[in-house]
């Protein structure tokens, strides 16, 4: 137990040892993000992540938002297990034929107002997997998408940026 406490104090707040450029970027995103969240979602933004056919690369970067360095919860953002509580759907991958129905169901189960953010080049147009018998292409072919975040995979800071864009560009419907 002592060792754990010691390690916690030793680690401290890990945002400090970040490289300065990246830190500023995140802070800027963070502050603007927080304002938007206050305005529309009363300080709490709940995200449901859906892998609609990704290679798992995008998931790794979305995961990273939860690590202590990006620590997205400090901005009021958190990930939920149920689409019923979600404000935002963060969707990755080209939509695979076998995930199409699950994706539509999850979308329908999410209450309004809702935003859809497609993450990664695959989510934009199917990426390297293209359109085929099994890959239906970008997320927008199946459900309405508000924002696309490019990259293969996009970096965690880009994903936070995209979430911000989603809230500022489109009013909840």
């Amino acid at each position: 137990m002592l060792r754990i406490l010691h390690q916690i104090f030793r680690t401290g707040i890990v945002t400090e040892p970040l490289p300065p450029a990246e830190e500023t970027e995140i802070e800027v995103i963070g502050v603007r993000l927080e304002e938007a969240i206050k305005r529309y979602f009363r300080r709490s933004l709940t995200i449901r992540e859906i892998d609609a056919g990704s290679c798992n690369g995008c998931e790794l970067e979305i995961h990273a938002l939860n690590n202590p360095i990006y620590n997205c919860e400090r901005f009021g953002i958190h990930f939920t297990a149920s689409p019923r509580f979600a404000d935002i759907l963060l969707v990755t991958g080209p939509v695979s034929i076998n995930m199409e129905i699950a994706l539509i169901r999850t979308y329908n189960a999410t209450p309004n107002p809702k935003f859809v953010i497609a993450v990664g080049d695959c989510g934009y147009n199917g990426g390297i997997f293209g359109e085929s018998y099994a890959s239906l292409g970008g997320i927008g072919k199946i459900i309405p998408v508000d924002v696309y975040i490019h990259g293969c995979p996009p970096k965690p800071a880009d994903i936070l940026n995209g979430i911000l864009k989603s809230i500022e560009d489109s009013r909840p419907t």
Partner: protein
Amino acid sequence: MNVLIQITTSILGSDARQDNSQYPATMPLYQIPKERFAEAAKSMKTAGARLVAEWATDETSFGKGFGIYVCYAKDSEYLIVKTYTPLNDPTFPSLTKKFVPAYRFERQMRSLMGVVPLEHPDSRPWIKHEDWPENVYPLRKSFDASKPIPRVKGEYQWIRAEGEGVYEIPVGPVHAGIIEPGHFRFQAVGEDVINLEEKLGYVHKGIEKRFESISWEDGAKLAGRVSGDSTVAHALCYSHAVESMTGCNPHGRALWLRALMLERERIANHLGDIGAICNDAAFAFMLYQLTILKEKLLRTNLKIFGHRFMMDKIIPGGTSVDINKDAKKEILAEMDWLTNEFERLVTIYDENPSLEDRVRDTGILPPEKAKELCVVGFVARASGQEMDCRILSPFPPYDRIVPKMTVLGSGDVHARGWVRVEEVRDSIRLIREILNSLPEGKIREGFTPPSPDKSGFAIVEGWRGEIVYWVQSCPKGGINRCMVRDPSTVNWIALEEAIHGNIVPDFPLCNKSFNQSYSGHDL
């Protein structure tokens, strides 16, 4: 001499003919008559070999029928056995009763290529879902892959358990966390799981078919996206297979840089997974601590290699990135820092009785089962199986810097975690050795695409375990078939075994300790 060849040729005599279009010479291919396919499998089983992969090809463009291939391995030796089946009778003898992993391989061959394994105990589709029309076979050359498959009505027949108090829990495909999709169906009595059945294929995006319409160079990019967490290992394995067909030998420096990236990928994934295991045992502290270390490594990757996961850095003919002296110093310093931080956390893991209580004796995969299921990688090593193709079938530089193999016998969550702790330690050592002996030279050789009518095979030990590629060129050049076997393809079924008799709330913990790839399996 390869023992597997000796056995095959002594039993089959002149019925077994070596195919000279297969490369490299150390991974030979023998063609045998269909009637003797099962007999050959039996002799492999008796010899103690494991089934590595089984797949089918459409060889109509060669003026032939369907090729049925099976790869066996014993210790460091590999052997591919092939037979033909005509277009008008696309059947072959099932090997499922001899080798358990054939069970899913053959369901998949039937579903996607339309070749029927005779006497296979299960006629349900695999990868192909119940709402696909029965007669679409995407891997056949006659199939038009440009349009989505139309949907039909259909229902998957789950295995049922009946009896007093038995109930069913369906989970997925969309899971609670940020993870890939798949469906699990548990039958439980009270808290105890009596059966688990997996249904996968949700992220099937037609990768193997896609290979057939892209260039040899783009193949490395696609291979690097079979499973995003193993991008280095997959791109490397693909490149090895293709290079073996062309006789292209990348320069020493490229080989060492590839190994450097492979070990960095191993460390990053192991760190994240050890943390995730602890988190599922309600010890979130470790997850947060270890993800900080992982994040630092990824940032270094970005700075030095230009990508956090090092995607597209391994190409046929070498690497697309070099490192300079400063980068070398930086990585060496990072390894010192990492050792220090990691060891501190390992001590905490080791001294935590509540964690130990959750991870020990949970989700046991006994060694006999592991052998029977032909599992690979850390899952196999945690269940007493000695295998690591970096050691048993080393490619340079692993012939010079021998990795250390950690094998444990308990087969529980702890063992699968601890094998990875040891592997992080060893990968740090390997990275130091690589950097200290990195030869000077070019990082890429000119790559000329393979000539027609050849095939190449390769294995690479990624962080999950042995990855296998078998690539075949068309009579007109281009890729005729690219068979991808991620470790997950054989390892997923072991989770069904390991969960027996555990309680439902321990499933996430067991699953995390396996952490197999959905995308790598579904393709």
